[in-house]
């Protein structure tokens, strides 16, 4: 049980640092990269420690993590830009 409360402390520390970064005046790119890295680290900690993916069989962990990451990336890189392009086309050439 001790592990879970150590994990809890780490998650809270990450949250506090993220809130600090939000109030600090960091360059936008540094801020965005830092926030996304911190977010993914927090998600990995929750998945690994609380959801026990760390101790599950590697096939299960890979199916879950890779499945979500690959599909999420496809959504962001391939599908959404097309949706944005259609949105721009409609607002430019569509009925006024």
């Amino acid at each position, binding site marked *: 049980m001790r592990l879970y409360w150590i994990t809890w402390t780490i998650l809270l520390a990450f949250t506090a640092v993220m*809130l600090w970064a939000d109030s600090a005046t960091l360059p936008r790119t540094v801020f965005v990269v830092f926030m996304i890295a911190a977010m993914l680290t927090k998600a990995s900690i929750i998945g690994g420690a609380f959801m026990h993916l760390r101790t599950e069989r590697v096939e299960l962990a890979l199916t879950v993590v890779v499945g979500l990451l690959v599909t999420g990336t496809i959504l962001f890189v391939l599908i959404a830009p097309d949706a944005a392009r259609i949105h721009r086309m409609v607002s430019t050439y569509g009925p006024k």
Partner: protein
Amino acid sequence: MAQTTQLTLDRWNGGTCPFGAGWRKLMMWWFIVTDGLLFAGFLVSYGYARILAIRWPDQAQVFSLKYIAVMTFVLISSSATMASAVDTARQGSRKTALRFVLLTLAGGAIFLGMQAYEWTHLIAEGARLNVNPWGDAAFTAYFFLLTGFHGTHVLTGLIVLTATAVRLAQGITTADGVEIAGLYWHFVDLVWVFIFTLFYLL
């Protein structure tokens, strides 16, 4: 051929249980993956709406980030109590597990209450699904969509945890049942990590 078959069997080493997890736990994992993809779709479309927006409001002026931080603290704490519930249930300590499940329930109820207050506050200021007093209308649309969908998950989690608590008190639920309910609750916490960062902070 026989060697390949043996290798495959060794690799999976599960027979009817290739992932080394019972069917109930596996089904919860598949549910989490599909539900995660649904949230991924929402967050990706939010990302593009954000990129396309001409004037996105400054979140610090719309929300109280301290308030959102407290909500985050409550949800992370409830995840820790849930993990402790699973651990104590595994050790066979049913009463302690029940106490932890009840603590998790309390955390979830506080989170949901705080979210309801936040919604009420913003609606009172004129925010609607299609009306945003602070700029781009997509801002409030995504706010209500993301937090509303997440809040529905929290509510569902509370129902699942209540059923788990009752069954645990009656001695019906096994440690596996507590773990499966816990998986769902941690997923709700996991999704909040993304919403908190991408919607409130970035």
